């Protein structure tokens, strides 16, 4: 204990580069964000003030009050949570099922080809993906609607309707990232010894019970890890919304990060943007802590 507390110069020297990088790129922005959330004024006023404390106009808690009083902000938080829940559930659920199928006794070549096809969207630029989906989703000339109409089914408005826009965006991101998550799950499943599955076969276990009682518990560390990263990653959604809907129609796809961006650069209210940023930071931070606390107990580490 004594030794642990002693100031160790050599140790400090060794971690200094890493600490410096963290200070500049993580700690400083967080402090700046928190301070910013208590400031008023436009972007221009902010850049004029620079670092001079005397010129800063303080807003006290007005930025937070503005957010809380604003009905749109509540909807935006709701949208974000809905988006995260749908996307994370979709990613984990679909990737588990796909990986399970790929890991079963199917043809090797079929498995490899499917993996390659599923992974491909992950390496394609999101801009290209968005362009393609804009056409696929187009309500008059799009691919999906031409199929629907040829089947004599009513056309769907996809991105142009309040009711379907958010789920359409979830689908794009699910399609794009499914291969990546499947690969993670598949790698975890393949690390389970094959004899364990054979023992289950000899124990007359139906496939679904093998999946629930053996596969899932054995790969729970991977499921745990991917759930956390997928959640944080989904909370930070911005580019696909900026490309496809700009938050519309009627704020139905407006999410926290896109709202922060709009406040900063569209409406020139950087203080409000910072306040929303602090709220996002609080949500993601709390979730991470909760995840680690709650799931650690249920996760099996070998």
């Amino acid at each position, binding site marked *: 204990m004594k030794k642990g507390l002693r100031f160790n110069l050599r140790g400090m020297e060794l971690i200094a580069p890493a600490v410096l990088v963290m200070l500049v790129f993580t700690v400083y922005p967080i402090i700046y964000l928190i301070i910013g959330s208590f400031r008023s004024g436009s972007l221009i006023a902010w850049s004029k003030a620079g670092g001079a404390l005397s010129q800063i106009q303080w807003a006290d808690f007005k930025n937070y009050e503005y957010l809380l009083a604003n009905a749109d902000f509540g909807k935006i938080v709701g949208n974000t949570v809905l988006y995260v829940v749908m996307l994370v559930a979709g990613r984990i659920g679909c990737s588990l099922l796909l990986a399970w199928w790929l890991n079963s006794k199917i043809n090797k070549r079929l498995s490899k080809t499917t993996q390659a096809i599923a992974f491909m969207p992950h390496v394609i630029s999101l801009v290209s993906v968005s362009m393609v989906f804009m056409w696929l989703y187009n309500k008059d000339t799009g691919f999906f609607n031409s199929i629907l109409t040829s089947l004599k089914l009513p056309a769907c408005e996809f991105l142009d309707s309040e009711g379907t826009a958010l789920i359409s965006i979830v689908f794009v991101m699910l399609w794009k990232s499914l291969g990546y998550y499947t690969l993670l799950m598949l790698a975890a499943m393949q690390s389970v*010894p094959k*004899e*364990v599955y*054979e*023992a*289950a*076969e*000899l*124990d*007359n*276990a*139906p496939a679904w*019970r093998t999946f629930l*009682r*053996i596969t899932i*518990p*054995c790969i*729970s560390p991977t499921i745990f890890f991917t759930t956390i990263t997928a959640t944080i990653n989904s909370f930070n959604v911005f580019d696909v919304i900026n490309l496809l809907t700009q938050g519309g129609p009627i704020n139905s796809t407006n999410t926290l990060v896109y709202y922060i961006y709009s406040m900063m650069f569209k409406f020139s209210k950087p203080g409000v943007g910072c306040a929303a940023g602090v709220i996002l930071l609080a949500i993601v931070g709390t979730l991470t802590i909760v995840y680690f606390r709650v799931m650690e107990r249920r996760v*099996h580490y*070998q």
Partner: protein
Amino acid sequence: MGEIKLIGIQKAFGKDVVIPDLNLTIEDGSFTVLVGPSGCGKSTTLRMVAGLEVPTAGQILIDNEDVTSMPSGKRGIAMVFQNYAIYPTMTVSGNIEFGLINNKVPKAERKRLISEIADIVGLTPYLDRKPSALSGGQRQRVALARAMVKKPKVFLLDEPLSNLDAKLRAAMRVELKQLHQRLGTTFVYVTHDQVEAMSMADNIVLMDKGIIQQSSNPATIYHRPQNIFTACFIGTPPMNIFENGLENVKFGARPEKISLEPIEGQAFRLKVDVSTKEMLGAECIYYCNSKLGQIIIKSPDDYPQKELMGYIAYKDLHFFDADSNRIDINDQLKADLDRICD
């Protein structure tokens, strides 16, 4: 009941034929050991009986019922794997219970069976532990308990002792043998270790390159090996085989059957020069040269001399024809032996 019949079994992995044509009957209630060098097809044979591999051709019958295309879980068998393959996330009792749940055994009955089995294999204090908190020997017992609790017609054991240390392995050998006597069920045991085979088996099936070289009880396989492969596989050090000396006939003698003192009755004599000697306490192993080639002799006595005379009783000599198959001694061979005798 638990009689296994393999009829005309062929197994190929792609173009690689592992087992060309295998016919074997494993008697009900027997302790049968499949033994052979690695790659001889013994594990593949076991896995086909288990239903984990599908034969390319042929039939597998258990109690005269064709199970060739029956799923593993329905065959009434249980298997113990080399690495135990216990379910890592379940407790000991969870591991034992899993097969019972699948077979829809009612809960009260499951509880009774688990405590009964745990008592037999000595796992009662560990029922709530996870496998990661158990020693190698305890994991082995979990694997055994999981197999036993299903009351199978046939036990399949795939090198179950090879992950244990030497001391524990010897103890488990005896325990398994006792378990077999107690249950009276058919045991099919795969190993590459001839000591395990000799010490446990009622019947040894010795395989090489997917072909059964000999199938008989341990005493017969030791005293009357059917061919040179069998003769050399069983016994440490392996049997001495003299390739030259007799025309078109090879003959051999086990190192422990060569005496360094004159013996009564008809004996074959051979002068040997000792090149290396290993003193093992209870016995000495002599590595020697002779006019018939290199020869290994195992003797309880320690001789300091470099030049010795070996005596082999005619009944301890084994003769093999040009195709390496066993032949019996006859007057012609005796006359030939007298000619080359020292």
